[in-house]
């Protein structure tokens, strides 16, 4: 029974990673850059939600909407100010800038909200469900997180496969010049991608802090790195890959904490990643790009 409980917890935290990883993977797929500031957008989203509920006393759903709105705008602004001017420069320059943006966001949060941790109140009010005579407990947070994750993944898949904008994103992801020759505005497409990725990060931030209620300026960095790992694990650039990678990572992490060692759980997670990448360098669902010349 205990093992089932761990599995449920693992899927729950894994779903948070999956939502963050979806943002990483979309931005990587379309803008061809690793946005290391992505994790810190999560933190900003959580703080906005916290402020709206704790300081303004508004209902939880309003705080989620506010967090999504602020993070969407923040994502577009960061892309426009920090990354867009570097379009066409070596990817290392963009990567370093992303790390800079990450520190900037953390330090800005420290100035605004101080470095002392805030106690985040969960946005979920549902009572936990007990199964198997109380041996397994499914909290409202778990249900909401898993539901949100499935919803986000189905939504993104439909968006990229059915809509005009979504298809344009895939076109930009495959061949930027050819996409321009189709009349697709690449800058605008990349900006939209950042908006979507950052909105997802806000959702992930609220869910993360509802499960793990300590909120501080560095809250986003570790989940951000784990989600990045999850995206690589599943095959970066692939939407189902990010989802699978996130959930597997969550499960592996929970099981290693439960059965092996709490201190070494990250080391174990990353070792698994290394082994997987040795066997499948493109990640679990990564595409082996076939090219015909």
């Amino acid at each position: 029974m205990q093992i089932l409980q761990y599995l449920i917890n693992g899927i729950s935290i894994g779903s948070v990673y999956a939502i963050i990883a979806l943002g990483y993977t979309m931005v990587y797929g379309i803008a061809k850059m690793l946005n290391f500031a992505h994790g810190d957008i999560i933190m900003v989203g959580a703080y906005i939600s916290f402020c709206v509920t704790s300081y303004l006393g508004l209902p939880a759903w309003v705080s989620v909407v506010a967090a999504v709105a602020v993070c969407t705008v923040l994502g577009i602004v960061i892309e426009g100010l920090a990354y867009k001017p570097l379009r066409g420069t070596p990817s290392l320059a963009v990567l370093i800038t992303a790390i800079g943006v990450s520190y900037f966001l953390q330090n800005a949060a420290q100035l605004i909200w101080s470095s002392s941790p805030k106690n985040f109140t969960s946005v979920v009010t549902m009572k936990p469900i007990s199964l198997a005579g109380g041996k397994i407990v499914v909290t409202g947070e778990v249900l909401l997180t898993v539901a949100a994750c499935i919803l986000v993944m189905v939504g993104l898949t439909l968006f990229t496969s059915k809509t005009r904008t979504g298809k344009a994103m895939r076109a930009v992801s495959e061949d930027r010049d050819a996409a321009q020759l189709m009349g697709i505005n690449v800058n605008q497409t990349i900006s939209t991608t950042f908006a979507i990725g950052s909105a997802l990060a806000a959702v992930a931030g609220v869910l993360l802090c509802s499960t793990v209620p300590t909120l501080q300026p560095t809250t986003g960095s570790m989940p951000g790195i784990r989600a990045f790992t999850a995206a690589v694990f599943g095959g970066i650039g692939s939407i189902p890959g990010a989802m699978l990678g996130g959930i597997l990572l969550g499960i592996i992490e929970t099981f290693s904490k439960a059965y092996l060692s709490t201190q070494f759980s990250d080391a174990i997670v990353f070792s698994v990643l290394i082994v997987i990448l040795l066997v499948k360098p493109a990640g679990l669902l990564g595409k082996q790009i076939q090219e015909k010349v």
Partner: protein
Amino acid sequence: MLKIEDMHVYYGAIHAIKGVSFEVGEGEIVALIGANGAGKSTILKTVSGLMHPRSGSIRFCDQDITHVDAYKLLRTGLAHVPEGRRIFLQMTVQENLEMGAYVNKEVSQADLETVFNYFPRLKERRKQIAGTLSGGEQQMLAMSRALMSHPKLMMLDEPSMGLAPILVDQIFDIIKELHKAGTTILLVEQNARKALQIADRAYVLETGKITLSGTGAELASSDAVKKAYLGG
């Protein structure tokens, strides 16, 4: 229709196009021929806005398009089928065509039918992933994709590259058909013989400069062209 004057293009410090001027009149087939590295593709990329010239001017349908970005140009009726086809390999044939019609907002069934009339094979394969098509089919798809936007001028970069002779003939027949249907063509080719056969006029490009120009027939019989590009 298209008028290029004294265009200079650089790749960093490398002076790739050294003052090229030429024009394409409405209803013409104009060919640019020349060896590898002469700058043929660079000229097309610069015209379509993927690159910008350092000096000189490009006018299309009486508009100055010298510094217009690539994504805006398709709306003015200028389509570019790039070298190496550059179709979206992970998308289906149908989706590639939809991307070609991106500027029309919606894909009209009539446009699809027109394209499938030219290239019936694509109709059979419309659900197939473009990366699984043969080289010839990919070239057909690249041309179809460009046709979806109803271009006035279609620039084709090496449409015969890497294709079997029978397919080359087929592609050139279709270029002639498109031309008959009213599309002006600017053709860049290494296959000089083929290009000169169908071109009304042609320019010979050597290391970034135009060295010869004339009608297709004139150039095909010129000694200099024969020696350098037609194998004696």
